[in-house]
């Protein structure tokens, strides 16, 4: 089963009185375990694609299938559940909950899922915090961490539920290149170990080149598939 499948997807925005077409008919299928980069200049539609796949936005036209589910017909509640159980998010500006410490932030989606026993949950959280190398910071608040550390917390948070798909919108944009590289390495490592499907956007060429597959976007259309 393909975790992501887009068929002739269009997305129009109303910006003031002007209709803006962000996506002009996208066909894209991503296989399980792929490590894919969406590349393209600003305004090419990278974020829009991620939003549609991430079920935080809906397409104006076409079919979006995520985790085997066609998102067009789902209610807000069902979309939320789909996000919770199928997708892990990594944001450009990390988006940690500022009042919670590292451990709590990572635990957060597990609590929402409410599937594991408290003991299993704690073990899982500890494991993922260890995985991103932050065990000694487990009780620190996000404000006490560096940018790279924060993004690692975000990665742990995205992965802790063992999602089918991890979406990352320019995960390295707010990081220096060295830190950005370690984040990419970490993502690749997890991709290899867990066979999690990774899809992330970037305009950083050095990172693009490390992807197994690059989807190039230009003006709302896919240019080629490398």
């Amino acid at each position, binding site marked *: 089963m393909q975790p992501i499948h887009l068929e002739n997807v269009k997305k129009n925005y109303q910006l003031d009185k002007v209709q803006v077409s962000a996506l002009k008919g996208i066909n894209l299928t991503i296989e399980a375990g792929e490590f894919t980069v969406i590349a393209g200049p600003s305004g090419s539609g990278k974020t829009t694609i991620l939003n549609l796949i991430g079920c935080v936005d809906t397409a104006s036209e076409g079919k979006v299938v995520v985790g085997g589910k066609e998102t067009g017909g789902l209610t*807000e509640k069902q979309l939320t559940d789909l*996000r919770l159980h199928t997708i892990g*998010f990594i944001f*450009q500006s990390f988006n940690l909950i*500022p*009042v919670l410490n590292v451990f709590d932030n990572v635990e957060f989606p597990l609590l929402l899922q409410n599937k594991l026993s408290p003991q299993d949950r704690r073990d899982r959280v500890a494991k993922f915090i260890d995985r991103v190398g932050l065990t000694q910071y487990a009780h620190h608040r996000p404000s006490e961490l560096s940018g790279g550390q924060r993004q690692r917390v975000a990665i742990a948070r995205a992965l802790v539920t063992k999602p089918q798909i991890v979406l990352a919108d320019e995960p390295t944009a707010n990081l220096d290149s060295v830190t950005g590289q370690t984040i990419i390495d970490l993502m690749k490592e997890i991709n290899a170990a867990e066979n999690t499907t990774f899809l992330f956007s970037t305009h950083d060429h050095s990172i693009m080149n490390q992807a197994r597959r690059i989807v190039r976007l230009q003006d709302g259309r896919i240019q080629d598939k490398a």
Partner: protein
Amino acid sequence: MTHFMVLKIAARNVFLHRMRTLVVGSILTFGAFLAVVGHSFVNGVSGGMENSTTQSITGDIQIYSEKAKDKLSVFGNMDGSPVDVGHLDSFENVSNRLMQNTDVAAVVPMGTSFATVNPGNILDHFLETLRKTFKDPQADPKDLESQKRRIRFLVQEIKKNLEGKFEEIGILSAADVEQAKINLEQVSRDTFWQDFNSQFESKIEFLANKIAPLIFDDNMIFFSYVGTDPQLFQQKFPQFEIVKGEMIPAGTRGFLFHDYFYENMVKHRIARRLDQIKKKMKDDKLTIAGSKELQDQIKANVEQSAEIYLQLGPVETETVSTKLMQLLSSQEKDFRVLIKNFLDMNDQSFQTRYEFFYKEIAPYVVLYRVKIGDVLPLSAFTKSGTSTAVNIKVYGTFRFKSFENSPLAGNFSLMDLVSLRELYGFMTEERRAQNKQIEDEMGLNDIGQDAIENLFSSSSGARPEKTSAAKKSENVELSFKKRIMGATYTPDELNKGVFLHAAVFLKDPGRRDAVIKDIMAISKQEGLGIQAVSWQDAAGFIGQMTFMMKAILNIFIGIALLLAGLMIMNSLLMAAMDRKQEIGTMRAIGAHADFIYRLFFYETLFISLLFGGVGVILGSLVVVIIGAVGIPASGDVATFFFSGPRLYLHLNPGLVFTVIAVMVVIAILATQYPAWKAMKISPLQAMQKRE
């Protein structure tokens, strides 16, 4: 599991925004504090008012005629006018029927109304004493002469006081003024007094009729009274106790002043003020130097010093004068100036002069305008406006234990029900028989079954042919005015006759509303013609007062809490906008909208309960502390509301619970809009990029 996380986030947000939390929190604390303390206070006051009302006059329930024109209001209307509640025919029937109800402990018949008594001024008083002395064969001739001198002295004083002032007073017509001057001149001459002893009856009559009215001093005593079965009343109002004199003997007509009224309205004005000043200095630790109120009373005493010197005869004046000169170390010869100087007291001199007053002056003045044992000529207006009068003996004064100082409990003086009926315009059996006799003599028809005034009231307009008879009967009525009716009555006369309303006591006052319903139902079924109301309703505006106080208090609390609610709402709304990305992130990660709602709700709940709780605890502490010590009542108004010298508060667990419940409600209400706004925040917000 998520609840704990939500709580954690909510609590941390509360601490993160400390300033905001503190501002909102202190308003909530204030609101909760005010609610606990204020309500305990108002409950204390209303409890005091309830006790002083139910245990002095109303009982738990009042019953009265269902055909009453006005609503029963035992304290009269706010403007002091009486109410017309009609009447019920036989107390025995109603009482017997009500007593079959197992909840009812006692029924006490009543009628409440207003009456006046004019005990006569100082000259009347001296003349009456003199008349008695003349009639007493064992009287000391020296005493007689002394009394005559005192009256002559007083007449001189009146003449002196009025000289050139008749026009100023302006009550009398020009002709009357001339006559008054002539009369005054006449009684000042020696010739008037030379043959006094041989013609004392006519001389006293002349002085009483022509000279005494020239003392233009408002001597009327106006009071509320309750007419009842005094023995039953004493038994069923357990706080009742006799202070001065004795209880009205069973089966005897008689009158008891309420001691509070007697001390405040009947006592010599200067003595009463001195008592009040003494009490305030002792109880409220006031000083004359520091209190405008006490200074005013001292000033009033100085201005009314005539109330002393006019009451002293020449011999007493001499005696008191000498002692005053000693006390004041003064050479002042003018007694009036001496008295004025004496009454102008300060903190240092008050105690000695107070004692001096009671030891040296009080024995010579009329300390109480009505004395225990006097027969009072009470007059009142019947409900249709005609005036009636009865002469009734004052047996003593009474009060209600623990409400000694409550003006509310002290509102009513007391008389027997038979006299009330007469004063209120119902004919007693006795009077009806006498009327019959007179009618027979005069050849009139029977002029009515119940009350003479039925003939004059509009409802009897259907009998115009009786008008002439009615007019004559009015004359008949007048001829009875000065007559003292029989001094006794039979139990049947008391119980089978008319009454206006009745106090019903319950075994369990908590069953009040149920019993009121029962009584109404029974009355309807069996045609008793009565209606029942709670003591609050019966107390009229007094009963509504606690309701008003609660309403005002609740408005204040409401404003404080509304303000807190609005501030909470506003700050939550701002928080929702500030935290768009955070909320969007939570939503993107998979939090449902209701999670966001709970996040906001718990935050408010946390603040409300924490700060509301602090307010409740502070308030409870204050209530418990004040509950042990009591708030002293300073001033008449406080005494009125506290129904006693001190107000003790009690902490009501129900109140604490209610306040906490209100806090939760505020949390719920204040959360709705901001939470709704927050729920609408799209997970797309999480994708907003911040460089």
